């Protein structure tokens, strides 16, 4: 049995397939017969939800996150982006049944998450839900993120800690910083957000496509909201519960949080210089 391209119903979808060039190259590439033909990459009919989980050295929590996501979103496809972990994260994630995109070098959170969007776009997933690998996001809340996107009411839904639910309390210094960022995002987008640094999100097809193309590298959460708004995407904030992290520590503490603020504020200011177009 050879992998002839005409095989199976997967051909039907190859019209809008971004990997069509790859299919042409397969003829000189002696693939083993066991592999499916290249264009068979439209695995998710219907809604096609891909759960993107960025993780860096989260071996303590990644397994439970994947289990919880699997329980809450049964038909979703979970992909863990291992951003160059030095521990067992990738192995544990694979054993828990997730697809694992292992980045050979560390790209930082922006690059890692974007790899997830590109993965989702390539394999035809319509919706992406982004959940941190550290267990801070409660997957039982994913459904409420998903709903507005599935109903076509929003292109991007951000889960907020501050909209009433949950008992997450941030240290005072951090709270001030978050207020400043919220004010700046409001200035840039004309829309009120309470939790701009939340990485718990659902994205519809337009947002996935935009972010697969361009996504901020280092501290992407705040900037990506402005980027989405500037491209005419409809953004919604919904209340979610978040918990204190159980394993590992926040990557942004002490002097790094000052640096974080400076970088994000600067990025928003520079962005504002470029005007409202595009």
């Amino acid at each position: 049995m050879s992998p002839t391209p005409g095989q199976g119903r997967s051909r039907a979808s190859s019209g809008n397939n971004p990997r069509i060039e790859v299919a042409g190259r397969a003829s000189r590439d002696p693939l083993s017969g066991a592999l499916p033909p290249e264009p068979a990459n439209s695995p998710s009919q219907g809604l096609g939800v891909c759960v993107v989980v960025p993780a860096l050295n989260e071996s303590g929590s990644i397994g439970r996150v994947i289990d919880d996501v699997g329980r809450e979103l049964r038909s979703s496809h979970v992909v863990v982006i291992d951003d160059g972990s030095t521990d067992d994260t990738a192995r544990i994630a694979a054993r828990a049944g997730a697809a694992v995109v292992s980045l050979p070098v560390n790209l930082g959170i922006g690059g890692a998450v974007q790899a997830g969007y590109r993965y989702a776009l390539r394999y035809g997933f319509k919706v992406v839900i982004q959940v941190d690998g550290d267990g801070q996001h409660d997957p039982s809340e994913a459904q409420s993120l998903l709903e507005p996107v599935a109903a076509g009411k929003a292109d991007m839904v951000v889960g907020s800690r501050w909209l009433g639910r949950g008992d997450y309390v941030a240290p005072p210094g951090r709270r001030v910083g978050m207020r400043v960022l919220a004010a700046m995002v409001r200035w840039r987008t004309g829309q009120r957000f309470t939790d701009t640094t939340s990485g718990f999100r659902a994205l519809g097809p337009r947002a996935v496509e935009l972010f697969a193309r361009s996504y901020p590298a280092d501290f992407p959460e705040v900037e990506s909201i402005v980027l989405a708004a500037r491209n005419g995407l409809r953004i919604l904030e919904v209340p979610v519960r978040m918990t204190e992290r159980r394993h590992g520590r926040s990557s942004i503490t002490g002097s790094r949080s000052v640096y974080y603020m400076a970088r994000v504020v600067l990025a928003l200011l520079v962005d504002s210089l470029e005007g409202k177009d595009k």
Partner: protein
Amino acid sequence: MRSTVLSLVVSIGFLVVSTRAIRRQHLREQAAILWLAVSLVMVFLSATLPLHLLDHFASVVGIAYPPDLILLLAVLFLVVLVFHQSLAIAKLNERHKSLVQEIGILGAGPPSDATPERTGPGGA
């Protein structure tokens, strides 16, 4: 006179080094042209030291102390060069990021499991 010889030796030395690097293809074409031009300018300036061209130029642009003209030009050149390289690094970084992501995605392979709808050729 001695200063002319000294700077000629240095700049010809630089010309030799840069042409050798170009011949061995250690430089990209664009950079090769730049360094060739730089070394030729250096040779020209050294060779014409006795003619006091520099003093002349300096007085034309209103610089009282001629060597300052050289320093000014050198600093300007280096600033532009570093800025250009900064841009080049950003571009390389973007390409590198794309490649790393691509390698990761290719390594993961297509999502064959966990999608019950699909019983295509891969499952056989």
